[in-house]
């Protein structure tokens, strides 16, 4: 991996998004609208306080996955990936470049949603704000890599759009967002152990509801980092296959 090239790719992604003003506006507006609707739909404050950390984790995962997945697919469909793969950049340069490039936007998005949830929707939290952000950063990293990896299996936007419910919905229902994992049948509990949102929800809930520190949620954090590293390696491996087809 060459840092210079990784940054070149990251800067290019940022430039692309900055020049696309409508997308930039949507990145900010859509999560706020979604969060507002969810917030207003809960009649019980207690329930909202309990579910808000899980929703923050889900939204971070969902939007980062979506943005990266579609963007990477475009890189392939417009032929620029082919040009890149014939150049001296390595596959790891591309994956890490994407991660860095999207990070700033995903982070801005998270910052807006977390602050909006806490200060506008008035959701109670007891942990440190900065620890919530650090945890969200790890969720975003996992989601960006997952987006790159999954986009390798899609040949066009239609296929990618169908991967979204496949990747996101099972996680929403199986990872403790709505009801506790412990209340599900054993085999589903076992399955949930392989899904990153399980650890994202557990960790963020522990921080926000019970005021735990990042060290206390070290296990969840470790599992998410492990997932991120594994998926980025898989993404780098499968990249060539995608470019050649």
């Amino acid at each position: 991996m060459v840092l210079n090239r990784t940054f070149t790719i990251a800067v290019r992604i940022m430039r692309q998004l900055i020049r696309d003003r409508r997308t930039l506006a949507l990145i900010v507006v859509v999560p706020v609208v979604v969060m507002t609707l969810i917030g207003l739909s809960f009649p019980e404050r207690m329930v909202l306080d309990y579910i808000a950390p899980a929703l923050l984790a889900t939204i971070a995962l969902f939007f980062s996955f979506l943005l990266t997945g579609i963007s990477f697919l475009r890189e392939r469909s417009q032929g620029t990936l082919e040009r890149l793969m014939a150049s001296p950049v390595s596959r790891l340069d591309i994956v890490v470049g994407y991660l860095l490039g999207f990070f700033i936007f995903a982070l801005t998005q998270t910052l807006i949603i977390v602050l909006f949830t806490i200060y506008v929707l008035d959701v109670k939290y007891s942990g440190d704000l900065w620890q919530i952000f650090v945890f969200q950063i790890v969720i975003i990293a996992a989601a960006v890599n997952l987006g790159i990896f999954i986009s390798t299996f899609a040949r066009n936007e239609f296929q990618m759009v169908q991967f979204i419910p496949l990747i996101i919905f099972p996680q929403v229902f199986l990872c403790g967002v709505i009801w506790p994992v412990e209340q599900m049948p054993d085999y589903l509990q076992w399955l949930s152990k392989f899904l990153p949102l399980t650890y994202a929800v557990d960790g963020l809930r522990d921080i926000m509801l019970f005021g735990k520190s990042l060290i206390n949620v070290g296990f969840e954090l470790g599992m998410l980092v492990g997932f991120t590293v594994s998926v980025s390696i898989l993404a780098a491996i499968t990249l060539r296959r995608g470019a050649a087809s």
Partner: protein
Amino acid sequence: MLKESQDNAINASRVTFRYNNIKALDELSLEVPAGISFGLLGPNGAGKTTLIRLLVGLLKPKSGSVQILGQKPSRKTAHLIGYMPQLHSLYAELSVIQNLDFFARIYRMTDKIERAQRVEEVIRLVDMWHRRNDSIHKLSGGMKQRVSLACAIVHNPPLLFLDEPTVGLDPELRVTFWEHFTNLTKQGITIIISSHTMDDAAHCDRLAFMRDGKVIADGTPGELQQATGKPGATLEDAFLYFIHHENINGS
């Protein structure tokens, strides 16, 4: 006569490649001397793009060997080649200058002033300087082709692969493109061009006629025309002549 094989820009020997069960290249052998424009001519599905992808290192042959400038295509040889794929392959939201700057950086042009000069030089070369700050999606098809060519040559590669670069160009722009290509070969650059039009073929220094993953004939346009034995034969006649012979030999 071809030069010694070590002077060749390209050596391909008995190369086979399959996409699942479909044979795209069938024991193909080819030698391309350095410093010329070389045309890969053939109908769609003849294996032209597959061959180019193998030569730029995007695909690996199932059997046989390929060499570019005496080396196996890999990431180490990537800076030696310029590649213009069939699609425009540009970042639609970025401007002309941002696209060029990006590819120049990717090809290790780290000196800022040198890079800016080279980027300006190639944009002027393809006559797009007046549109340098426009996003790619605002440009016409022909303009995109010009920018795509500029991106392929920005790092001064000695070997250039152009996959159907003249498709969709109007006749005037086609002539301009060929002027660029001729100028590049005068600088010692080897250009491999795939095409299915005989108009392109006539401009090349040498040609290979391809069909069903094989080279059925190669030589200068004049040699290929003469091989038909008919005075005044066109390249189209020559192509049909070789297809006819291939069919007889094959059956």
